[in-house]
């Protein structure tokens, strides 16, 4: 059994002249929530986009469940069970919840005609599993709050058996209450055996929920610490100083 669900080794990425990632090693363990933090331009988005197939690294290797993999497209990543949840971008606002959950993967009994009963039932179940109190899957997503929408997007990846879920700034533009709700969802995912990469600017949120922190700055990894080995203040000073843990 592999030690990590995902291992990214020595990842380099250039965008033209911009050296976005300078030899980053990044691992995610099983049943783990990793907080990927760092200021703007640190390379967080680029790193996870490589993992989810939107970019291809110029140098470096990726191992999934101990085996070397070649992720060229988002489809490849999805096949492995790596799913990314972006914010609003993930859902169609004027379409119902159940149709959103099954977007592109609609269940069908006959010639492609949608099995509505199954679609409605299954989406209701997975929403409830996640802790979302939505009674009617035919409600249009637009009528939901930000936190609930995030929940629907997460429920979608939960249903489709994701093994690793990447949440890119999930609590941005959410109220305090809604942010807490989203973090509860993350805990749910972990308890279902799914690992989570939580990218955020909000160090307080990151500290609240992550098992481990990885700090990136200017394309390099500054720190990789378990929660027990550090404190909120230390994390903040690491990020703002831009120096690695050994240097501080």
């Amino acid at each position, binding site marked *: 059994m592999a030690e990590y669900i995902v291992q990214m080794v020595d990842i380099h990425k250039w965008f033209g002249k911009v050296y976005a990632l300078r030899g980053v090693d990044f691992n995610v363990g099983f049943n783990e929530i990793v907080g990927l933090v760092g200021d703007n331009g640190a390379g967080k988005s680029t790193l996870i986009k490589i993992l989810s197939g939107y970019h291809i690294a110029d140098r470096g290797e990726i191992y999934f469940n101990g085996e070397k993999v070649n992720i060229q497209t*988002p*489809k490849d990543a*999805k096949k492995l069970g790596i799913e*990314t949840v*972006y914010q609003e*971008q*993930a*859902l*169609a*606002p*004027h*379409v119902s919840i159940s*149709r*959103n959950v*099954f*977007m*592109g*993967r*609609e269940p*069908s009994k006959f010639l*492609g*005609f*949608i099995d*509505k009963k199954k679609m409605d039932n299954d989406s209701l179940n997975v929403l409830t599993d996640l802790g979302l109190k939505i*009674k*009617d899957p*035919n*409600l*249009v997503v*637009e*009528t*939901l*709050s930000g936190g*609930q929408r995030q929940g629907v997007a997460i429920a979608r990846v939960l249903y489709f058996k994701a093994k690793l879920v990447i949440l890119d700034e999930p609590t941005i533009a959410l109220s305090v209450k809604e942010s807490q709700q989203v973090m509860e969802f993350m805990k749910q995912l972990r308890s279902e055996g799914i690992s989570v990469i939580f990218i955020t600017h909000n160090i307080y949120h990151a500290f609240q929920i992550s098992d481990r922190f990885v700090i990136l700055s200017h394309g390099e990894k500054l720190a990789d610490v378990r929660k027990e080995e550090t404190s909120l203040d230390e994390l903040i000073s690491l990020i703002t100083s831009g120096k690695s843990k050994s240097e501080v």
Partner: protein
Amino acid sequence: MGIDNKRRRVVDLFIEFRALDVFIIFILLFLTFLLLSPGHRFISKDNLDVFFSIGSEFTIVPIVIGMLMIAGEFDLSVGSNLVFCSFIFFKLIDVGVNVWLSSFLTILVGTFVGFSNGFITVKAKIPSFITILGTMMLWRGVTLFWSQGLQKALELQGHDFFVKIFTGQIAKFLPVQFLWFIIIALLIGFIVHFHRFGNWLYTTGDNKQAARAMGINTDMVKVITFSIVGAVVAFVAIMQIVRVGTFTSRAGDGWELNAIAAAVVGGTALSGGIGSIFGVFWGALIISIIQNGLVVLRIPYYWTFTIFGVILISSAIISLYLDKKRLSVGAAEAGN
């Protein structure tokens, strides 16, 4: 539990309001023309005949235009495609090609025109509006050039059955064109509302990025829909020219905007992702009944533009108002 049920009823009502609302407007218009027309001419057999036969030629088009608009695209070249296919069919019959083969080939040509519209729109990444304006002029221009001075009649002797399919009567009173309208509306309606492809249409039109992220090939969805539009337009072209009996270079003139108007009146959003075929069905009938009613009431032709303009703008305003209402209802209740 009680609050959720109430929320569902209210929201559903608003969403379906559009389609129901359109149906009611249709009934109101029908009654208005019925009462206002001298001697109730509106419901005379002759007029109803015209409404159900010629009217149905037009009403079929918004059904597929609505489908395309749900996917977030427009096709302004339907009128040009219509006249082009009309000409192709005429020419094929003229040189002696079998009627069935001619029909098949014409529909193939129409599908190809639609396909090319779709292909250019998605590949060249030019907004469909522009692409279509271009093709609109292209196909009509080509047709006008080729058909210069064409005066012949369509020779369909000995093909009574073929003619009957497009212009006959059901049970001696209902023009078969209306039946075609119902069939096409049901077919498209089933696909849009109950088939996977329909969900791809809505999600592509509502949030293309999300649809792509979920693995839906939005380009293919659009190209297929454009092709369906082309095929149906070709079918209507055949239906029309068989009825008229001769080629006319003005065929389909102005249909594109009326088709979009019908779709909008039927609750389809210009931005995509919103609409129902049920609504478009009644929206098309409304546009058709107005065209018919204005003639029956002997209202001068130039008034039709004004009236259509007013209807279109009021529909758009009502639609926006309802959208705003819908949003605030949802937020108010979801905030609990």
